[in-house]
């Protein structure tokens, strides 16, 4: 009975979100109500429930400040750099499909988070006629059955660096809750994530073929080399630099390589101008991390211990 009460908040949360009967806010509120009896049966004897709840709400609100600030900042950055137009329509090639899904999507996700990379990738894929709603009209090639699902699955390949997405607020928060330095948590996550990136090659090629864009042997070898480079950069960046920028540094150079192959820029200066905000942000983040012992308000033990 005690165990059931302790598990009930998580079971309710998973059930409500999984069934779609409530959104994150509603499901979390229900789970919080169920967490009160769970806390009551779990607290050591002599601990007053109201005082405990008041302290944990305060502590939770403080801990949530950082991820909230990063998510809002990511959206501000996206608002500052996004153009008004959609990507120009282009014919689909294996190199283009790869460039807009994995490196481009993962880069945008690393900078802004919030599935922005997947949304961009889907828009670009539809610009190539993959999963677009023309259904073969006007002489266009008829779409294979399930083309929308294939486009969606391809777009989701953009979300393969989520622990570093939006500069990693989830990783930072998870580390605080686990009581382990965030850099160590990110490093452990980087090993299987790097292997996952490389093994995603065949998955990506299968999806690309289903979308009517088969990937030839030589192209596969180049894409595998790019995935291997991204994986290596992810490990190296987590080993040597602040984990917050590891996603950007792993996907950025490979993005340049992939775009160069898919659509060599006609105007190098304009291409550099488009990349300038991202380069500026990365440089500023790295510079800021050089400032050791910067003033910070950290009233709780876990927020002091786990940077």
């Amino acid at each position, binding site marked *: 009975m005690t165990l059931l009460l302790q598990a009930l908040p998580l079971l309710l*949360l998973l059930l409500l*979100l999984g069934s779609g009967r409530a959104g994150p806010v509603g499901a979390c509120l229900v789970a919080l109500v169920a967490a009160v009896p769970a806390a009551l049966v779990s607290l050591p004897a002599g601990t007053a429930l109201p005082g405990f709840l008041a302290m944990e709400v305060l502590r939770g609100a403080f801990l*949530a400040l950082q991820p909230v600030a990063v998510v809002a900042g990511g959206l501000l*950055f996206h608002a500052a750099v996004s153009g008004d137009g959609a990507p120009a329509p282009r014919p689909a090639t294996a190199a283009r499909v790869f460039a807009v899904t994995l490196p481009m999507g993962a880069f945008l996700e690393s900078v802004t988070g919030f599935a922005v990379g997947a949304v961009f990738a889907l828009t670009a894929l539809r610009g190539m006629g993959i999963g677009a709603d023309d259904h073969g009209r006007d002489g266009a090639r008829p779409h294979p059955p399930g083309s929308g699902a294939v486009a969606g699955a391809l777009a989701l390949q953009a979300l393969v660096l989520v622990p570093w997405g939006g500069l990693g607020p989830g990783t930072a928060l998870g580390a605080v809750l686990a009581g382990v330095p965030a850099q160590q948590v990110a490093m452990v996550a980087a090993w299987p994530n790097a292997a996952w990136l490389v093994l995603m090659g065949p998955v990506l090629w299968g999806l690309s073929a289903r979308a009517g864009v088969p990937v030839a042997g030589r192209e596969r070898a180049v894409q595998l080399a790019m995935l291997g480079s991204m994986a290596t950069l992810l490990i190296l960046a987590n080993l040597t630099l602040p984990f917050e920028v590891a996603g950007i540094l792993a996907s950025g150079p490979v993005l340049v390589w992939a775009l160069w192959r898919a659509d060599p820029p006609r105007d190098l200066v304009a291409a550099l101008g488009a990349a300038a905000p991202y380069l500026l942000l990365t440089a500023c*983040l790295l510079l800021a991390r050089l400032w050791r012992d910067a003033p910070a308000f950290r009233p709780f033990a876990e927020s002091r211990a786990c940077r």
Partner: protein
Amino acid sequence: MVLWLVSAALLLRHRDGGPRAGAALRRALRPALAMLLYVVLGRVLAGSGAAAALAAAAVAGLGPLAPYAITPMGLLSGMITGSNVGSNAALMPVQAGLGQAAGLPAALAPGLHNFAGGAGAGMSVGVLALICGLLADGTRPGQIWRLLLPSMALVVGLGSLAVWLLR
């Protein structure tokens, strides 16, 4: 702070920088509230000892196989909560407790939960609803999930391999 300063400087270049910033901040309100609630829930469960009790029960029930439950639980948590913040806030205390109770190195369970939760968030109910909404062609999340099954299997396989190699 750096992200906000850089974003503000870049927004100043636009004539409509103010409205752009306002729209972005309004868009952030609801996720911010969800994050706040997730973190408070995680803190109440962790601070009261409920998370540790659940982890101990998992270890007692699964025995030596308990560490191999970390990755599938992380993947599921990410797929349901829809974000790495949500996944970590909801289940990180339980997973870290499970790792401790099973005698794993301190960062192993949190790192693997972070990996699997992040991967799951990218294939989550919420993200798939967003993608299906953008497609607007009748595609159902289940169709996309079926295509992503090899990717999910890789996540569970690699997480289990990491437990075997690094424990």
